[in-house]
Structure formats: C-alpha cells, structure tokens
C-alpha cells in the first residue's frame, strides 16, 4: 500500500477530459452537443420515412437503455428488395440486483407480448432485454415500463451500467443488506438529465440546466462503467470482470465491509495489440456503508482521467494500466480523505448459481430455474405466466442468465414445487449439468457486432460437447463453457474454463484454462477453429484430464497444472 503523503509526478493527461474538446473523440463532441442526451431523438422518432432514428442519435439513445438494431437474418433479402434493413430496437431494463415482484413480471410479460419479438431475454448482468421493438411504438413501450415501476436509465451508454449483485441464499439478512447497497449505488450513479422523461414520457421539454447532470457533466464518462457486488463463496457475478467490484466480507454472520477490486473487463479487439481482457485487482477494504459513495469516487476518477481520444482504450482497465495502481491509490486517498485499509481474507468456490431448493437463515426458500442462454421464448413465457398467477415469493434474475424464485414461505414451498411439476418446469430445477455451467451471448440475428452465432448455436454445440464428455467419463464433471459471437465477450468467456469467441460464421477462437470460480483468465488455444477442429483439440485434453486429474480438480486448473497451455502462465487474480 502507498501512503498519500508521498507526492508523485503528475499523471500524463494528454488524452483525457482536460484536453480541448476538438481534440477528443467524435463521440465526446456529440455528447457535448447533445444538450444532456436530448439530441434530436424526439424529432427522429417522428420521421416516418425510415424505421431507424436518423443520424447520431442512436448513440445518445444508448444512454436511455435503447439500442438500434436490425434483423441481420433478412438484411440481404431486404437490400435486394430495395428496402432499408428491418430496423428495430433492443431495450435493456435497469433492475439493480435483478429483483422483481410478481406483479412486475406479469407486466413485463404483457409488454413483451404487445411490443417485442422473441420473448424476453435475461442478460449476463441480471436484467431483461426486449428485442424487436419498433420505432413507432418505442414511446408507448417506455411508458408501459414506467407504469410497472421500472426504467431503462443508463442500461447502456457511457455511464454507470446496471449494478449487479450476487446471491447467498443461506445468508438472507446479509444478502438483503448487500442488495440494498447495490440498489443505492445504482440510484446514486445514474444520470439525472431531464431528457429521459421528456423524450419517453412526453414531459414538457425544458431548456437544459447548466449543471443538469452534476455527477457526469456534459461529457458523461469516457466509456461504460460496471459495478458489481458479490457475496462469497459464490462468485456468480464474476467479480473480476467488473470495473469496480465489492466483495462482501462476512464475519460471525455479519457484513463487516467489502474488499474492493478495480479494473476488470472482458472486451478486446483481435486487431489491436493493446487490447485485452483484464482481471480486476483487489486493492483494499472499506466499511460497508461507504460503498455507494466509494463507487461515486472511483467513477469520478475514471471520468476525469479516462482516455477520451481512443474509445477502445477508454475503459477503466486501461486507465489503470496507463497511470498505474500507485497513482490510482493516491488519487483515491486524496478524494476519499484516507487511504484504503488492507484487504481481508475471502474465498470463492464457484461462479455458477446454486441448484435445488435452498433455505435461508430466515427460514424462507429459494431455487433457480435454468434458462438456457437466458432466452424466455414464447412457450416458456406461457409456462411462467401460469406459474406466476399465484405466487407469494419474489423473483430474481441472475448473472448466469437464470431466473430464481426467492423468499418462498415454507408453507408455500410444496405448492410451488407441485405447480412447477404440473407446468413442466420442475426439470429446470435440476438441469443438465453442462447446461447449468454454460453461458452464451445474444449474437445473431440482432447484435450488430456478432461475427458468428452464439445463443442459437449453443444447443447444437452442447450436443457435441456432451457426447465428447461422455466418451471420457466426464458427464458428471461440471466445466464452465461460454460462447460469445465476437471477441467483446458479453458472456464473459475469458473467465471460463473453455470458451469460444466468434470470428466468422462457423469459426471461433478457442480459449482454455480459466478457473471454475472465475479468478483466472483463459488463454487463446486455437484460432479460427470450426466445430470439428474444436472437438479434435479438446479430445486429447479431455483424455488426459480423465486419466490424470486429482480428486476435485477442475478442468481449467488441471490444464494449468499439467502445463498443457502454451505459452506463458495464465494471469490470475490475487485470491
């Protein structure tokens, strides 16, 4: 640890906020011109010649939780037909900690039927996405979301994204405390601009006030900023993939505070050397009550020092690598008024969700419904609709793209179990072991960045993968597997034991050697491999693992121990 009394040389500020606007990235200038995220969105929505929102406004709409997309499956066909692409919008909700009431679920169900396509989609940051919303219905959709007590503020954009919160069903009181802090953090960090109610709810437009968004200013953040809370021993949220992570430190069944870690991120570009996934580093400890204010300080540092010239290098992880941990700790101590205390001991065992019924220390019951790739298609939506017609508990979405039934009273538990069985949902409580350890991102046809299939390919790949595991007697061994349609890593592939990241239709980079609890980065093992090649490559590794593993040893750990990964040792986080 450094002490704040030692003054270091001034950090290099030639790419941050302190530079003249005209030297910064075009996106910065756009934000500045946008009158606190208003732009011309309201006018663009009225333009009837196109299903798109004209000009640069799509960038601003992200701050409001809305992505313009088009159905890539019919892009070519429509171009032939001299039609514009089938423009549509993906809307992501802000649900800090992923908690919903039964009534909210019913509302979301109805909204998805009325406005969206392909059901609902639980994301790897425990919220919901709707796909396929059309421009002319966007405002009505947003009002419908408001009417059930939810919003989409900052679900995307250069701001504080959805704050995630892990689970520990056994420690109910602590979970409640941490979840409340996650919500408080989200509420504290979201933009305050009046643009949102004006554009989406039809509030009377006001001229922008001088300090309309005090936390952000006109330029907002250089890039997205992700905060997460986790309660060991589960690392369900993948704390080492967050820009800022709070790891609950529990002593004597009491929350004493958080170890904080900074600078995680998955995204990378295959075309740039200076682009890489990075694990968050654990740097110290804070009292629990301080967490939301602490998050604001860290975000402020990134706001002021993050790279605003090169958008790819604008994430907090690069700011830290550019200016160094010592600089960060000094700046933090200065803004916070005291240095960080040393981190406490913590231990993670896995990064999946707990399975089966679990009882909390308050006597209430919790369980997880497996949702493959988080996709609630029309059939599953109907099943859930029936389930939630009567239900006294709460609903929680997980960062493993699952849906949990929580806070079920002991007297209701049996009835819920029966209903799950009646509706054909019970098998989701004890899913196929491999499915339960698999994540995949949305990719085609909606994601504009996808280079290969992910969500739609996963069932096919799993069949092949499971057969391979069976051949080696590994059917009962969980292996974390993650598939993403491009190197951005929305399914957090670089934290899995095995990962595929899309390169072109049918071709993937194969990454191996992450840890079962997500504290070590997987390494690139093969480039541009198709399915046959991937199987060929895994075959001998599974064979050796089956023969030579130690008791309880996970696949990723084995690969590292047996030095089967080339070339250097993989990078691992501190604990």
């Amino acid at each position, binding site marked *: 640890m450094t002490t704040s009394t030692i003054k270091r040389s001034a950090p290099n500020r030639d790419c941050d906020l302190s530079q003249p606007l005209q030297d910064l990235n075009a996106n910065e200038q756009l934000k500045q011109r946008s009158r606190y995220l208003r732009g011309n969105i309201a006018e663009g929505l009225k333009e009837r010649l196109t299903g798109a929102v004209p000009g640069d406004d799509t960038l601003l709409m992200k701050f409001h939780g809305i992505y313009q997309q088009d159905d890539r499956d019919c892009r*070519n066909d429509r171009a032939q037909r001299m039609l514009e692409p089938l423009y549509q919008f993906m809307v992501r909700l802000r649900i800090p900690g992923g908690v919903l009431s039964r009534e909210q679920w019913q509302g979301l169900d109805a909204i998805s039927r009325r406005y969206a396509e392909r059901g609902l989609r639980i994301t790897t940051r425990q919220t919901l996405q709707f796909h396929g919303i059309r421009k002319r219905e966007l405002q009505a959709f947003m009002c419908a979301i408001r009417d059930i007590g939810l919003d989409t503020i900052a679900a995307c954009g250069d701001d504080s994204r959805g704050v995630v919160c892990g689970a520990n069903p056994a420690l109910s009181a602590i979970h409640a405390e941490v979840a409340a802090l996650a919500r408080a953090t989200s509420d504290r960090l979201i933009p305050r601009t009046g643009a949102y109610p004006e554009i989406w709810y039809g509030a009377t437009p006001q001229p922008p006030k001088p300090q309309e968004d005090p936390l952000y200013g006109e330029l907002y953040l250089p890039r997205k900023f992700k905060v997460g809370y986790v309660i060991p021993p589960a690392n369900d949220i993948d704390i080492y993939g967050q820009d800022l992570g709070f790891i609950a430190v529990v002593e004597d069944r009491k929350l004493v505070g958080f170890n904080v870690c900074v600078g995680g991120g998955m995204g990378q570009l295959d075309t740039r050397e200076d682009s890489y996934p990075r694990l968050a580093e654990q740097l110290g400890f804070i009292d629990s009550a301080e967490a939301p204010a602490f998050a604001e300080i860290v975000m402020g540092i990134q706001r002021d020092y993050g790279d605003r010239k090169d958008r790819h290098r604008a994430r907090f992880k690069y700011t830290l690598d550019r200016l160094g941990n010592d600089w960060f700790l000094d700046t933090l101590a200065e803004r916070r008024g005291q240095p960080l205390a040393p981190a406490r001991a913590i231990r993670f065992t896995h990064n999946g969700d707990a399975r089966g019924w679990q009882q909390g220390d308050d006597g209430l019951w919790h369980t997880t419904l497996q949702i493959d790739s988080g996709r609630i298609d029309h059939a599953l939506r109907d099943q859930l609709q029936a389930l939630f017609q009567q239900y006294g508990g709460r609903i929680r979405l997980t960062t493993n793209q699952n849906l949990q039934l929580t806070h079920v009273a002991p007297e209701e538990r049996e009835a819920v179990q029966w209903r799950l069985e009646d509706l054909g949902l019970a098998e989701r409580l004890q899913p196929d072991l491999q499915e339960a350890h698999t994540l995949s991102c949305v990719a085609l046809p909606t994601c504009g960045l996808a280079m290969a299939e992910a969500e739609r390919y996963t069932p096919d790949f799993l069949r092949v993968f499971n057969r391979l595991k069976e051949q080696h007697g590994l059917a009962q061994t969980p292996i974390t597997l993650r598939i993403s349609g491009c190197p951005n890593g929305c399914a957090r592939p670089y934290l899995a034991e095995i990962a595929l990241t899309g390169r072109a239709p049918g071709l993937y980079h194969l990454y191996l050697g992450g840890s079962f609890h997500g504290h070590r980065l997987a390494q690139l093992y093969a480039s*541009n491999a198709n399915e046959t090649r991937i199987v060929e490559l895994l075959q001998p590794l599974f064979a050796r693992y089956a023969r030579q593993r130690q008791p309880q040893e996970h696949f990723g750990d084995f690969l590292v121990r047996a030095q089967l990964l080339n070339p250097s040792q993989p990078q691992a986080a501190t604990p």
Partner: protein
Amino acid sequence: MNMATSLATRPLSEAQWQALQPLLRQLDSRQSLWLSGYLAARAEPAESLPLAANAAPPASILIAYGSETGNSEALAWQLAAQATARGIAHDIGNLATVRLRQLAKYQYLLLICSTHGDGDPPEPITAFHTALMEPRAARLPELAYAVLALGDSSYAQFCRTGQEFDERLAALGARALLPRQDCDVDYAEPARHWMSAALDALPQAGASAATVVATATTVAPVASAAQSYSKQRPLTVEVLNNVRLSAPQRRSATHHLELALDVPLPLQAGDAVGVLADNPPALVAAILDVLQLSAEQAVTLDGNAMPLVQALRQQRNLNVCSPRFLEAWATLSGSEELAGIVADSAAQKAFLRSHQLRDIAARYPAHPEPQALVDLLRPMQPRLYDLANSFDAVADELHLTVQHYRYAFGSREESGIASEYLVQLQPGDSLRLYPHRHARFQLPEDPQLPLILIAEGTGIAPYRAFIQHLRASGQHRRCWLLFAEQQFEQDFLYQRDWQQAQADGLLQHIDTVFYQDEPGRNLADLALADANRLRQWLDDGAHLYLCGDTVNLEACEQALQQHYDAQRDASARSWEQLSKDKRIHRNLY
C-alpha cells in the same frame, strides 16, 4: 445504378457553357438525342471539332469497391480524389450496385475489395461476385485492371476475395496493370503505394490535352429503327433481373423487373411499354386437351402461318370469350342449353362473366377446326406497364414495377395473365414489348414548377423515373411524394430510392399511408393533413399527378377537389380549371 457522374473536362469556354445550360435544361431525352446526332454530324469533317472526332476515345476508368465495414470504400474514395487531383476522369462504383455487363464499357478497372466471413466476399457484393464467377461470364479482353485486396492474415483464407477477382479477371482475358496487392489489417501504407502505382499506370490526363468524356451512361445510343417498334413489330428484350419486392407471404406480390435494352426506345419518364404476354403453358395444354386438338396443326393469323400452339400461347385470349364466340359455340356443340343462354342477352352477359374458355369447353364439348377456333377467340391484348426508370439515368435498361394481379373467379382464384407471366420471368428469359407514349403524363416543361406526386402501389413506378430524370438533368424542383401501400415494413416500394432522393434534396416531402398499419386513413387524408401546403404549391403552379388503382385514386382526387374548391379564394383557379390547364395528370388503371 449508383455511380457518381463522370467528371468531364469540356472544350467549351465558361461563357459558352453557361449560355448552353438554359437550352439543355429544356430538352427532353428525345430532343437531346436528336441534338447529339445533329451536332455529331455537323462536326464532320474533323476540323470543326477535331478532338471529339479524331482523338482516341477517352480512356474510361472505373474505380470499384466491395466493402462491408467501410475500409475498402474509404480507400476507393481516397483513390478517386487522387485521380481527380491528377485530372484523370473516372467513374466510381460500389460493386453492390455495379453490374457485370457494365464492366465491359470500361477500359480500366481499379478494384478495391475486402474478404469477409470465412473467405467470402463482402455481403453486399455477393451478386456481383457470383456473376463474375459464373462459367458463362462474358470475356473482358479489352479491360486492364488492378486489384487491392483487404483482409486479415489471422484468417485462413487471407484476402481470398481479392485473389479470386484477380484470377478471374485474368481468366476472362483482362490484363493486369500491376500485381495484386494483398493488405493485412494495417493496410494504410501498402494501399498508398498501390494507389499511386495504379494511377501511374493509367493514361495520364496530360496525354490528350482536352479529353472529352462523353457522359456515356446518360445518353442513349442513336438508332434509326427505334420509332418502328409497335404492337405488331415488338422488340424482344432479355430479362436481367426479377426482384420480388413484396414479402414472401403476400399473395399479390409486386416485382421489380430489369430488362436489357440494346436499342433505344423513344420513351421518357412518364411513358410506358406495352407487353405481349404469353398464356400459361398449362392453360394452353388444358385447352388443347379438352378440345382434342394437336399442337402442331397450322393456322394463319393476320396472314402469318404458325402452329396452333403458338397462336394459343401468344396471340389469343384464352380466358375471356366474346358473345360471337358463344353463339358459334352453341352451334358447334349442339347444346340446347347454351343456345338458350345465347338467346337471352342478359343471361349471356352473366354467363360470360362467370365462365372462361376452359369452363365453356368442358361443359359444352365441341370439336372446332383449329383455324375456326383461333378465328373465334379474341386476340390477346397487350398490357401496359409504366417505365420505372429514366433513360438519362440508366440508358440501357428498362425497369418495370409489376404487381401480380389476382382475382376471385367463382370459387377459384385466378391470376392475371400478363402480370403472372411477368413476375415468373427469370434472368435470361426474353420478352416482347413495344414503346407506348403517355403524352398526358409528362413533367411540365417549366423547370421551376413544383410537383405533387400521388401514388398507390405500383403507381409509384413513373415517379421513380421522374426522380431519376430530375437527378440526371440537375433540375431542382420542389417535389412532394404521397404514397399508399399495405405495410410500412414490407411494402414501401423502392424505399431506399426515396430515402436517397430526400437526402439529396430531390424530394422535399414524403408522406406515406400504410393501410394495415393505420386502418381508416387514406391518400386524401395524407394530402389534406397539410392542406396549406397543397394550396400553396398549387398556387405556385404545381402540377399534380395521380397514378395507380383507378377507384382509390379517383376517390382521392374527388376529396382533394372538394376541399380545394371549398377553401379557395374567388381569384384562384378551380380544380376543373387546373385540370383544363393540364396541371392534373392521371395515369389510372
């Protein structure tokens, strides 16, 4: 076609050029054609316009690109800018819209193209790539080319598309100007070298001091035979492309047809062609079958001998029968029932409305002689289809917008003969047609007058031609398009063209109504939503056009007329007067 206009260096002084402009703007395409021929003839012998007549024809250079994420495209524009700076006239084209047959018109091709997928061409240029790779692709012996291939060496099929183009062009007899340059993701440097080498390899601007670059794509070649095509002497044209514009689930689909035009037709925007369709082969066979006639028997029509099958296929209407036919058939079949129907004129009318030839032949069997049969049947009438392109934008093609017509007939659904024939045509098929002028559906001569263009469905076709013409002739009129169809997402015919026209300032306003999206709203509501604009434009001398379905457009006009006449000042002209002034143009069917 999405090519930027050629850069022309002119042998005229600025003053001469300026003096010429007002005249040129007034010429329609036939007049331009005439004038070009006149001037060319006047230029002989060589002294009066030495360069145009003597110098080698200007090198025609195409800079073409295939791009998915924009890198190749950006480089192509960079190259174009450098060429311009060196005074090298050229066209620039996106392979997404360039046609293979257009390549043959160029002597030089500078091609920049990336590779995508797993060694695949960029998505937008798939059609071009496929066409070039086809075994029967035309040879290109006159072409010299250079290829800059963009790629990423971390893919197995590095720069595959560029390589394919290179090899294929060579195989087709084209000559490489310089070796292909393959570029990795850091392409800036090698691209820069290649560009300057490629430009060095082209004939330089200085070489022939005043190269005249004919705007070849905008002037149709002169041909004397043009006027003589008619219903009787139709022109046979080849189908280049047939695109279904409607969604697959739509029953009455609208198609966009592109036909090769190797001789010019004396037509311009607003005109149409008459199409001579064939009856469906299955219908012809069914009729031969029910009448037990042999296909090969000879018959004579208008003095021409031909086999019966051809007469039935091409010359006779096999659906709708005439009263004369029915009378003759009553005799031929000896049916008393039919004779009874024929005797009562009301019954006869009703009968003919509900029975087509094959119904009659099946119900009242008869065995006419082949010649008697064809003499009794009504001749096949040509059907008119409006031009959907302007020859001054795309000179050597003819575009049609055709809706597959379907109607209920008794308990079955029937397809319109000509429209079904047209929408089923495949590239490479041929088709007979002749020019048809619409003297009353032309653009006003005065280039200042605003246009109000109202269409439903295929009625949009002539407006596409109008807009292409305005663009090509550099006219800046105020234009307002009002369009009705079924569904915004599936039926916005030529949506991209209208978006482009609006972005380019050719169309000031576009209003649409899609019946399924907004039930109850119609074209008149659309126009009257901005009634002030309508009045203002008409006061400014606007011409108003109505095109498409007769019933709906007549209803629209009536509503507009009522509103207009009720609101107008005493001094303003009435709708009827506007109509008499030939400011209301109708093309209804």
